[in-house]
């Protein structure tokens, strides 16, 4: 995408800066520029904090405050002499050429992985900063062209750094926990797609980055395919697994528990908070491919004499998902399911009426109904939620259309990244 900084008068390309001469104030050559160091983190455009150069056969570190000017093929220092010091990586510092160039980055705009062909640097707010990443043909051409011609490949469109998150997990020494604030802009489903497309280590980094927000982390796990869920939970302790499961929807959590290695299941379930533990245990008893395995215990079911405002209050305090609450269920004093009403119909109805008067006949299934039966019922009666009842016709769970859709989607419509991802 065209960036706002693309119009900055002088954009430097990393590929033309590294390999250039290191000069003193008088213009005498001191050595060769090897890499630029930037600090990731707070700034929107990371500042150059120093550079690595080879001087007289030794690699030295040149701090940013010693540098007068950075340009293509030459970097000039302020003084006539260099204060020779070895390079020690400080927190959040990365080497642009070694750690970022040629590697994958997350393009937050569109949630895609891209590969950096060149890195664009400009003087911004008085100092040199990384302003963008070239992921296009020009960057590639500049890198491939002989050195003499490379300079004539002009700057093209590049990706604004404000839209980019680099991976830093491969950077050695300090396990610098570089925050990835831009990832928070993405939808959990997009994050899950990225995790699945990236390598294991990079996926781990994305999950770690969203880990500061446990609810978001749980949402991402809900969206991951089973074998990817396992891939990232395997290395965690039972306690950590339970923490993630505690925040997931109970039906998704139960599915995930069922995928865990047998010897871990019981330990993990035992560590869940009481409510979630009971639900997961209950759901685990059902075959995953039947209504019992698909249903979620989060729903609102009220007695038929409940008033309009009482019902709405129940919806307000409920922890169920918006999909599940699209329908309100009505039961008799014997807890038999007797009616169902769409939330929208309830809102439109006369406020004086009792819910029993508004509700229609509920279309329901038994826990052993198969997927076909559930989806047929949904199609025939235009339902987005199907209630599941036990032998005494008591409501024990609801199946929402999103969970069904996931299973009836034709093969190939959903991305698959491996054999184990199916079923």
């Amino acid at each position, binding site marked *: 995408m065209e960036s706002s900084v693309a119009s900055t008068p002088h954009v430097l390309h990393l590929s033309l800066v590294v390999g250039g001469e290191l000069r003193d104030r008088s213009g005498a050559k001191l050595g060769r520029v090897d890499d630029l160091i930037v600090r990731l983190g707070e700034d929107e455009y990371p500042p150059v904090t120093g550079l690595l150069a080879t001087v007289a056969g030794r690699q030295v570190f040149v701090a940013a405050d010693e540098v007068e000017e950075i340009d293509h093929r030459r970097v000039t220092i302020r003084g006539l002499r260099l204060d020779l010091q070895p390079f020690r990586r400080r927190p959040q510092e990365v080497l642009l050429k070694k750690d970022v160039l040629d590697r994958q980055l997350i393009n937050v705009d569109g949630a895609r992985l891209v*590969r950096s062909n060149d890195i664009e640097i400009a003087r911004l707010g008085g100092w040199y900063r990384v302003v963008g990443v070239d992921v296009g043909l020009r960057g590639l051409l500049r890198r491939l062209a002989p050195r003499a011609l490379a300079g004539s490949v002009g700057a093209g469109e590049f990706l604004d750094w404000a839209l980019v998150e680099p991976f830093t997990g491969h950077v050695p020494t300090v396990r610098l926990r570089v925050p990835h604030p831009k990832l928070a802009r993405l939808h959990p489903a997009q994050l899950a797609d990225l995790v699945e497309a990236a390598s294991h*280590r990079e996926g781990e980094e994305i999950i770690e980055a969203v880990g500061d927000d446990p609810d978001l982390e749980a949402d991402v796990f809900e969206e991951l395919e089973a074998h990817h869920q396992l891939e990232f939970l395997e290395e965690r302790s039972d306690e950590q697994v339970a923490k993630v499961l505690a925040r997931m929807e109970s039906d998704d959590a139960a599915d995930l528990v*069922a995928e865990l290695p047998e010897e871990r299941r019981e330990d993990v379930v035992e560590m869940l908070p009481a409510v979630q533990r*009971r639900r997961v245990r209950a759901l*685990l008893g*059902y*075959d995953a491919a039947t209504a019992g395995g698909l249903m979620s215990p989060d729903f609102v079911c009220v*007695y038929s004499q409940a008033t309009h405002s009482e019902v709405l209050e*129940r919806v307000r305090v409920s922890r169920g998902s918006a999909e599940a609450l699209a329908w309100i269920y009505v039961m008799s004093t014997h807890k038999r399911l007797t009616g169902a009403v769409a939330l929208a119909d309830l809102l439109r109805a006369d406020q004086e009426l009792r819910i029993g008067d508004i509700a229609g006949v509920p279309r329901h299934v038994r826990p052993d109904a198969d997927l076909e039966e559930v989806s047929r019922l949904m199609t025939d009666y235009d339902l987005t939620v199907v209630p599941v009842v036990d032998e005494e016709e008591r409501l024990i769970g609801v199946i929402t259309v999103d969970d069904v859709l996931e299973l009836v989607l034709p093969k190939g419509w959903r991305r698959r990244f*491996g054999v184990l991802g199916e079923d």
Partner: protein
Amino acid sequence: MRRISMAMRVRAATTQVRDRVITRRRRLRPRSRLATRLIALLAILGPGLIAANAGNDAGGIATYASVGAKYGYDLLWMMVVITVSLIVVQEMAARMGAVTGKGLAELIREQYGVRWAMFSTVSVLFANLGICISEFVGIGAALNLAGVPFQVSVPIAAVVVWLLVVRGSYKVAERVFVLMTIPFFAYPIAAILAHPHWGAVGKAIVAPQIQLNSAYLFLFIATAGTTITPFMQLYVQSAVVEKGLGPEDLKAERAEVISGSIFANLIAMFIIIATGATLFVHGDHTVNNAADAARALRPFAGRFAEALFGVGLLGASLLAAAILPVTAAYVIAETFGFEKGISHRPREAPVFVGVITTLIAIGTLVAIIPGVPVIKLLVGVQVVNGVLLPITLFFVWRLASNRELMGEYANGHTFNLLAGATVLATSTLSLLLLGVTFSGSL
């Protein structure tokens, strides 16, 4: 308003569960250890077997048949050495895929820069295109044995291969690839039908017969070259990545690579035995291509042997015709960072699918246009592969021993020496073949 508490509802559900659990507990039912292992093995049967067997393609069969026809069983010992080398190399590539989750081309770009990556990519593209053409020629030749004109068989085969690779899911494609190795069993049967002298076969394997003449050396080098080809490492690593295998699957995947390589090279040995027991014994020492080999078998081992050779050739060529475009597409997507994977649809990964389609289309066209000098083309391919192999192997070796990249899964000290020696020996042979091809002295 009276509320039913959550606990009540859950209690209801739990009672329900208790009743149900007695009758049916599918999700909690433990599987027996053996069944679990068997399923794990079947699920993992794939990249190593497919990569190694794609090497027994039209060009491979022609080479092995020439070896058998010219020297009988004399060169069988060499297949043992080549098998070990193949396993060493393939294991490193598969391990890298499982540990890093990245393809070889991707790692080359990240660790050695864009120029090396570009060089490998362009070479792979040309080499694979060349081999791809020879596979379609092979398909045409195999079906020609059954009287089907190649103008008909080749386009049909191309469409089938394309549909399988582009429209099928990864799981389906991989299963079909694995099934495509079944025709290879034709060779052991053909070998048995040819009534070889099994004692002589055994002796040739354990007691090397080394001759120091140029023709012998040439075949030796050519056999090594056709058995260990750059696309195999590239394919096995990318496929391991796409399959989503991780370090925890390493043990099983290693077993799969080893068994796959052994299977492929046993097949190659049976081809040598089959031709050695017939053509060599009867003094018919020249084999030009795989179809020739099949035809030549007929007078000695009967019609059945010819048919078997044809079936094997067809399966091998189809498998390789699918794997080569896929490998080229993986490499291009990895180098440039495009969406990749045979589990993608054209809309999701246009470049990936575009490369596959282009390679198959060119392969088909060249194979059905009469008068295209296929032999010259194959020589050219051999040259590109000869240059590419040492480079690919060097990268595989260095990357697999890189601790920063591989951590605890990096090559151990002893293994690294073995791997280095293998890479050096294989590369030398490859460069020798290059020299021989250029000088044209043989």
